[in-house]
């Protein structure tokens, strides 16, 4: 089928795993000299699709290459975090994901057969999106593809496999293999979103290095009617699977994800067989449980990353750049955040709003985020799979104490679940010159809060601040606030970088927003196009905001 048929089938129950997209010969393949494109994205997974959509929304034409002609097979990444959903909102497909996904905020932790505690990842109300949804990766890719086919600037080419990369001072030449033979394509910039076994990385002779964990895990997706709440359940050393851990998650369509730790000595080929899997599932659910095995996989994992995510005009994003253990849901989520970080910067450089140096900040910021993700992921893995007798002794001591002592619950680590990195040290931030309380420091992702929209209807702060430009969130009404709003708009005009304005009155309906931003009348937060705070002031003038814009765009 053609990609644009997806739009016509919207609303139907589509089996995204079964879709086969047609290879189509492109005129570029017959061009006498290689065509030149501003951006080529390699890999149409969640990261490549998100990047392509973001660029197209910013009026940048994108060629998106995929070596295959299908979406994800198997549920794979299933936990999509609040920040990723907010990004999907900006990309125009957040509702589609959340409507289909299973929303959850609560996790429960069991030791042996006893519940030792539960946690709520989003204990406060006043956010448009939940802490997480569970949604099979093929739905996520399907909904992104559906969105992509509504954007004529995206040129998605199936069965186009990159087989050669040559970097030049001002462009990259790709050699691409197709069913009709190879052709060459030039690009100003290339984004390698081609996964953990990235061929772009191999073609450039680069490596992703780190630590491999000597353990094996079985994922089983099981279809059944099960009357349980939508919560994350994690068992340490349960009686039904002694000395190992088990994780249970609800997915849409009555599918349940069960993750069994197997140990390093398990034989991956044997463990994949249904006759091995079914008894494990029955041990958990009961001997007479009725279920169908949908999908299974045995995996090992590593925590690793490339030294640098930018190599000349090639940018690595998602699993090609970094890998984490699955505990914490930091793989696909951080990949989508990579894409968002890269998209506005590529657009700003291509639209001559910013110098090339802005693209270096992609590497700096996302390498920092990857380190944070890898640190969290490694610590969780060391807790879940202790590597020595003494490590196991302390792990069990923590779990034992957690039953009755609140302090020990803070030490239990079944995965520190994905939250976006606060880019505190980013050179794009303007340091505070005024005094603020709370978490909305320069570098943080802007917090959501309920707002009343201009049309009088209830809305959400992040959705109001979801345009393509920088956004000034201006608090309060009256002359003081009006002056601050004028300063922000004038700064945008002076800097040649438009600044959208979102006005938040200081009143009861907006009390949460004012509290989360420690705002008073005249307070201004300047948000980058990826909704990270890059400056904030109590009552800024035009020059102050203009300087912050210059800094956020890496203009010397």
């Amino acid at each position, binding site marked *: 089928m053609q990609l644009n048929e997806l739009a016509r089938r919207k609303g139907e129950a589509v089996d995204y795993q079964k879709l086969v997209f047609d290879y189509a010969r492109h005129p570029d393949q017959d061009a006498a000299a290689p065509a030149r494109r501003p951006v080529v994205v390699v890999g149409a997974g969640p990261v490549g699709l998100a990047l392509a959509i973001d660029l197209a929304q910013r009026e940048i034409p994108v060629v998106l290459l995929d070596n295959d002609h299908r979406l994800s097979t198997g549920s794979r990444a299933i936990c999509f975090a609040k920040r990723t959903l907010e990004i999907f909102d900006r990309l125009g497909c957040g509702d589609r994901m959340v409507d289909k996904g299973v929303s959850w905020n609560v996790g429960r932790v069991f030791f042996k057969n006893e519940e030792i505690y539960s946690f709520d990842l989003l204990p406060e109300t006043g956010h448009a999106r939940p802490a997480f949804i569970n949604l099979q990766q093929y739905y996520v890719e399907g909904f992104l593809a559906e969105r992509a086919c509504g954007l004529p600037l995206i040129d998605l080419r199936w069965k186009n496999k990159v087989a050669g990369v040559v970097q030049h001072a001002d462009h990259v030449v790709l050699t691409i293999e197709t069913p009709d033979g190879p052709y060459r394509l030039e690009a100003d910039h290339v984004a390698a979103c081609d996964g953990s076994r990235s061929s772009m990385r191999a073609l450039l002779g680069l490596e992703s290095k780190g630590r491999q964990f000597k353990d094996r895990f079985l994922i089983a997706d099981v279809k059944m009617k099960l009357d349980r709440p939508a919560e994350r359940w994690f068992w340490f050393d349960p009686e039904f699977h002694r000395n190992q851990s088990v994780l249970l998650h609800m997915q849409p369509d009555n599918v349940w994800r069960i993750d069994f730790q197997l140990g390093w000595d398990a034989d991956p080929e044997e463990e994949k067989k249904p006759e091995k899997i079914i008894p494990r599932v029955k041990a958990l659910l009961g001997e007479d449980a009725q279920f169908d095995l949908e999908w299974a996989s045995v995996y090992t994992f590593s925590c690793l990353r490339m030294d640098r995510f930018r190599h000349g005009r090639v940018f690595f994003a998602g699993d090609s750049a970094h890998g984490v253990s699955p505990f914490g849901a930091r793989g696909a989520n951080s990949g989508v955040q990579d894409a968002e970080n890269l998209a506005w910067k590529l657009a700003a450089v291509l639209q001559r709003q910013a110098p090339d140096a802005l693209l270096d900040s992609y590497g700096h910021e996302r390498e920092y985020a990857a380190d944070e993700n890898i640190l969290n992921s490694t610590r969780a893995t060391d807790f879940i799979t202790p590597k020595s007798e003494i490590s196991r002794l302390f792990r069990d001591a923590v779990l034992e104490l957690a039953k009755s002592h609140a302090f020990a619950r803070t*030490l239990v680590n079944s995965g520190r679940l994905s939250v976006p990195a606060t880019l505190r040290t980013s050179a794009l931030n303007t340091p505070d010159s005024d005094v603020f309380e709370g978490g909305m420091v320069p570098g943080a992702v802007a917090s959501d809060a309920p707002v009343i929209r201009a049309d009088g209807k209830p809305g959400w702060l992040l959705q109001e601040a979801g345009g393509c430009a920088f956004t000034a969130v201006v608090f309060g009404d009256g002359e003081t606030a009006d002056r601050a709003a004028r300063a922000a708009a004038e700064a945008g005009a002076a800097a040649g970088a438009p600044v959208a304005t979102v006005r938040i009155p200081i009143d009861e309906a907006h009390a949460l927003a004012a509290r989360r931003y420690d705002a008073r009348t005249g307070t201004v937060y300047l948000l980058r196009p990826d909704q990270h705070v890059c400056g904030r002031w109590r009552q800024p003038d035009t020059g102050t905001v203009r300087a912050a814009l210059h800094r956020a765009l890496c203009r010397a």
Partner: protein
Amino acid sequence: MPQATSTHLTTAPNIDAPDDFYEALIEAHQGLSTEESHAFNARLVLVLANHIGSLSVLREAFAAATRR
């Protein structure tokens, strides 16, 4: 030697009744197998670490406990 403040580990004598404490410590292990004693000690370390709270003091404690 650092002074006994909340930001530093005290290694100067600080236990109210040293002999009573020592007796109580050994007493607490009475009737435990070696394995159970190790588990008890691990829990005890965690309980005491939480009471101390300060990570820098705890790091000093790790250093003090390391045999030179």
